[in-house]
């Protein structure tokens, strides 16, 4: 399948899961909010250019905001991780972006430890910025730190489950 078409289908699927399944799950606690949509940005191919990545992040953030009714909140966090992603990958795997084929960041292409570091750090940065911006509007330090820990753990669990369920990038093109 064409890389472009594949990513569009994935984009729609991830958004449907986030907006119509995860958002309707009864909340366990104030601090445990399942955010999953940003994983789309983490799973984009290595060779995507930085400008395109920022534009994609803008679209993802804007559409999510449209459904959450939070103007600019998810947008800011998405754009931030899209900006940080390429240098961070470079730091983990010293390889030029042009050297990659159509591969995406997975366990196999990056290796177990770099992949998990990548996912954990990016999730933390995204949630840190998102919840910090929320804290500036309302809430307390306890709310900020508690929600940061709770949401990060639940997001990582969701990403790991998704990784186990869907075997991405088995065939190398």
């Amino acid at each position: 399948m064409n890389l472009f078409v594949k990513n569009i289908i994935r984009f729609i699927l991830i958004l449907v899961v986030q907006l119509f399944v995860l958002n309707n799950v009864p909340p366990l606690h104030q601090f445990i909010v399942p955010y999953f949509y940003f994983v789309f940005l983490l799973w984009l191919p290595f060779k995507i250019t930085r400008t395109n990545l920022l534009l994609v992040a803008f679209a993802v953030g804007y559409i999510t905001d449209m459904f959450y009714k939070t103007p600019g909140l998810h947008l800011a966090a998405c754009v931030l991780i899209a900006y940080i992603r390429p240098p961070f990958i470079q730091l983990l795997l010293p390889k030029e972006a042009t050297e990659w084929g159509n591969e995406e960041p997975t366990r196999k292409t990056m290796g177990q430890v770099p992949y998990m570091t990548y996912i954990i750090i990016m999730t933390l940065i995204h949630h840190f910025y998102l919840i910090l911006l929320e804290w500036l509007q309302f809430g307390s330090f306890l709310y900020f730190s508690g929600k940061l820990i709770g949401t990060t753990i639940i997001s990582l669990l969701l990403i790991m489950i998704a990784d186990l369920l869907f075997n991405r990038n088995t065939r190398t093109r």
Partner: protein
Amino acid sequence: MRNVFLFLRRYSVFIIFLVMQIMALTMLFTNNRFHNTVMGMLSNEAAGDINKRVDKAEEFLSLSEQNKKLREQNAKLLSLLPSGTLLPDSAMEMVTDTFRLDSIKQYRQYQYMSAKVISNSVFLQQNYMVLHRGSNQGLEANMAVVGIDGVMGTIVHVSENMSLVMSLLNRQSKVIATLKKGSGLGEISWDGKDPRYLVLTKIPKTVLVKKGDTVVTSPYSDKFPPGLPIGIVQEVEQDQETNTYILLVKTAVNFYNVQHAYVVKNRLEEEMDELKKKMNKE
């Protein structure tokens, strides 16, 4: 000049990033007309249309409960019909919702319009609902939204066929409330912890409050009709710092499952606003 272009090219990614961040943060933190346009864009018809389709599927799951509630309300309303009551004396009449004293005719102050809830959330910190009724059907911002059981929220933005409602379960929502016993004037807000409970503050300690007291909308509210149920006091806590209570209130509406709503139009609101403006000028 060449250096400028070189600079732009070198740092183009960073500049795009900065522009996007600034856009996002201004959207988030400005509170003016620009913000209103952004919220208008966010509550647009496309997202509403998708929500409507999903809602249609979800509605099946709660049909029987909603039917039961509507039947109960019908029974209540039917018992209010004039044919079912006898006035003890033709000179004595209970008059509610009136504002003209020089006429025998009653005038409606509050007009109710039915609307369907097509999107709702409870577990976020800023929860909004979307109604499938908009400016084409006569809805405006700042109208009250009530359910069968009680108060649900306030309209904040309208588009042509949709409207965005700030639910009571929003950290920024504030509604004037009072106890049904008739004493104390407080403020209902939400602490973001549990979607089943609201917080009532500013009720002075001189008022006797017990668990189980009903909290209703205040007659001083400019959009809510007086006496609509908001919830029932669940926990009474004394605020150490001030002379007021902090009351935990169980919501009258089950926010997990809302399907139908009534939008309340206060037909005196314009007149009231004008009067208030005059006061501000002087």
